């Protein structure tokens, strides 16, 4: 199987509007058993490539060019003929395993569906084959899970089922669009490993689309970098990453959160020289033995989301918490913000227990700590102007300036996060994701708080925007002596930005200490596992055709 793609243009045509060109001049060939990764930021047109190959572009979008699969141009085929190609010859794996699976259908039936459509096989045969595939993608206890519904499986298991569905009709090309983006880092490593193993074993080709250079580097032989609808660079992965020819690729690589691991400790902070030295005074916040339980509405059983966490944050420092989904880090953030009452333990803000305060006193204390959220779309009220969003924490503050002075303060705050004072008249939807996160940060700092709790503040952002927002956070710490509680699932981000870190696993810290110590000399096996699982670009390919040891000297066919 060889697929050759030569897209001259993908255009969006709307009635009474000039056509917009979304993708221009992208061409590549994937021979049998080869892997190609397409990397690009959101809006670069990388997902459109997958849709164009499958002939699934929305009606307003047209593609010009050729998609040749073994000598047949897919773009010339009719809908019926394309249906025989989709699934049977080209399999697809989606980003969200929850929405890609039909929630009302047993997973075994969903796998059998493709088999029955594309192969001459009976119901019993299809079921046996589905079971074999489930075992192949290493679903534990497959004989029982074949009759499970998607919601009964974990995220990683769902994505394995998604892979099994794609594999079932025996395609020769797999297209995976952000297949691991919704997964935790350790699960991601397992899924990538499985994917690599399968394509090597079944001699399939893989087209992997991702925003994450690390993921691409860990599995693909060749890499194609897309920016704003154009292919800026294509080549062997090693070469693209080590000796990038294009300025955009270099920018993308530079924007990846760096590991300070190989450098001398302390160099992680870009503005180290101008930094206000953290005074050895009392901590801004002290968290003492917090426990937070969830009681299930049905039974008596209680789950401990947070179980005995203690730490403190000194003024002008960043405390990073890293952990996977469900480890309790967001619950902990809500407790520290005083939004959830813990079942045990105390939160001392500048020595005062926030849960022992009356409502009025708590409101007064709250002006000292603010929050920044993950999704900049959900955290800004779309109906309000940026000015009134940013000014929200001044509500209830009797000393807050009014009228013209307040406008000046809003403008000044917007300027300090890199926006323009005039932006206060606009509404959130007019801004990009990174700019919205700046607005959210402006809202958090306008009342001059001592502490900002940031829950996954850069996870929804593109890597280059992420680097800018991280720089802003470090800058604010240094300029205003702000303390941050920085929560993230990404090791690299936490390591790059934090002074001290806590590694959280199932509600407790398994390891705490200075960031450089924890990441350079991890003592707990879970920390080691996390560090190992993280996809990085400074490592040779780990999964797929040419495993680790041969990767560096890999010769293309």
């Amino acid at each position, binding site marked *: 199987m060889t697929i050759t793609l030569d897209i001259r243009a993908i255009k*969006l045509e*709307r*009635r009474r509007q000039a056509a917009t060109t979304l993708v221009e001049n992208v061409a590549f060939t994937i021979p049998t058993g080869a892997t190609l990764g397409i990397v690009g930021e*959101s*809006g670069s047109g990388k*997902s*459109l490539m*997958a*849709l164009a190959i499958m002939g*699934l572009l*929305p009606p*307003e*979008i047209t593609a010009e060019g050729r998609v040749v699969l073994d000598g047949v141009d897919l773009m010339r085929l009719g809908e019926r003929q394309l249906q025989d190609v989709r699934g049977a010859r080209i399999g697809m794996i*989606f*980003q*969200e395993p929850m*929405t890609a699976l039909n929630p009302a259908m047993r997973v075994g039936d969903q796998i059998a569906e493709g088999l029955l459509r594309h192969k001459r096989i009976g119901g019993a045969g299809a079921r046996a084959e589905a079971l074999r595939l489930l075992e192949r993608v290493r679903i534990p206890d497959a004989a029982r899970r074949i009759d499970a519904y998607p919601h009964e499986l974990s995220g990683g298991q769902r994505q394995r089922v998604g892979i099994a569905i794609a594999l079932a009709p025996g395609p020769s090309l797999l297209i995976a*669009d*952000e297949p691991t*983006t919704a997964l935790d880092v350790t699960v991601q490593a397992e899924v990538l490993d499985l994917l690599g193993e399968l394509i090597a074993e079944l001699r399939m080709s893989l087209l992997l689309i991702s*925003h994450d250079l690390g993921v691409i580097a860990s599995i693909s032989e060749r890499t194609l970098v897309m920016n704003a609808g154009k292919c800026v660079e294509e080549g062997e992965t090693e070469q693209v990453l080590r000796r990038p020819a294009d300025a955009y690729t270099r920018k993308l690589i530079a924007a990846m959160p760096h590991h300070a691991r190989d450098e001398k400790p302390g160099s992680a902070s870009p503005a180290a020289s101008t930094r206000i030295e953290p005074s050895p005074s009392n901590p801004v916040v002290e968290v003492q033995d917090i426990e937070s339980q969830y009681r299930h509405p049905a039974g008596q059983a209680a789950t401990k989301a947070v179980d005995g966490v203690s730490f403190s944050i000194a003024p002008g420092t960043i405390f990073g918490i890293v952990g996977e989904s469900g480890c309790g880090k967001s619950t902990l953030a809500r407790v520290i*913000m*005083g*939004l959830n009452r813990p079942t045990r333990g105390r939160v001392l803000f500048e020595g005062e227990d926030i849960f022992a305060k009356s409502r009025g006193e708590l*409101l007064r204390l*709250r*002006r000292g*700590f*603010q*929050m920044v*959220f*993950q*999704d900049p779309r*959900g*955290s*800004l*009220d*779309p*109906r*309000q102007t940026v000015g009134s*969003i940013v000014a*929200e*924490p001044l*509500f*209830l503050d009797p000393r807050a300036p009014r009228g013209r002075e307040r406008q000046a303060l809003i403008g000044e705050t917007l300027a300090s996060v890199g926006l323009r004072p005039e932006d206060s008249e606009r*509404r959130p*939807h007019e801004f990009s994701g990174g700019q919205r996160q700046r607005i*959210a940060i402006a*809202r958090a700092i306008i009342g001059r708080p001592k502490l900002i709790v940031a829950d996954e503040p850069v996870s*929804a952002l*593109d890597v280059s925007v992420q680097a800018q927002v991280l720089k802003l956070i470090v800058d604010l710490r240094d300029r205003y002596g702000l303390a941050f509680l920085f929560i993230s699932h990404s090791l690299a981000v936490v390591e790059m930005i934090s002074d001290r870190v806590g590694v959280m696993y199932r509600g407790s810290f398994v390891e705490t200490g200075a960031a450089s110590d924890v990441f350079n000399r991890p003592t707990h096996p879970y920390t080691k596992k996390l560090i190992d699982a993280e996809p990085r670009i400074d490592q040779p390919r780990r999964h797929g055709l040419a495993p680790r040891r041969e990767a560096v000297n890999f010769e293309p066919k």
Partner: protein
Amino acid sequence: MTSLEQTARRFGPAPRAGLLLGATITGAFIAIAILSQFWTPELPTRMHIMNKLKPPLVSGLAGSDAFGRDIFSMLMVGAWNSLSISFLSVLLGLLVGVALGTAAAAVRGWLEEAIMRLADIVFAFPALISAIMIAALIGAGRLTAVLAIGVFAIPVFIRVSRGAALKIWALDFCVAAQTAGKGRWRITVDHVLPNIAGTLIVQATIQIGLAILVEAGLSFLGLSLPPPAPSWGRMLSDSQTYLSQAPWMAIAPGVTIAIAVLGLNLLGDGLRDLLDPRSGGRA
């Protein structure tokens, strides 16, 4: 980090034709309703026995009924009666329903339970039954119709506003407002209501269309405005006996009701798209 689904959804046509048509139809009906209070081609209550059951254009634009009254004039005044009753009743339902629904979403707990069960109970009574009960208490008339249809609309607005408000409450900006020290009521006014307004306006326009139908049903049964005040529903009911002799007596009010409801539904759908700040329209 966009999935295919999001990529596909990002490019969609934004038809404005429906909105324009809906607004035109609704606007025309409102204009006619207001005009009818000052001028109609004929007095809608004047009977011309000699001129009875004349087809359209032979007598007036839409013919005449069994008493020789001008159907077009009756439709015009009927527009005033139907629309005023529908608007008032939906306004009643909207005010009470949204107050209860957003309160349920803001407070949660037992209050939410109580409000929602109350809505279930009211919802179990069809508008006709509550109209008959209210008419038995205060007699048939405009107030009866407004109350009956309004009460029937309350649970609809409770459910819609609670559901929409809960979605807004789950968003981070409500948490941000809490950390800024705002209370539940303040957040409801500042953040929840502006964000559910679009949904409510859409629901209200559709509900007005529904109210027109219910009002027609009530006056068909003689539970709304008493004769001789013309109403679309009673014109339909009066036409039954003459269906074979004078079909226009049924067709004229029937088509009028259908067009009015269609206009309101088109307007509602169009407004929903327009009021979404992300679609580029300004609220």
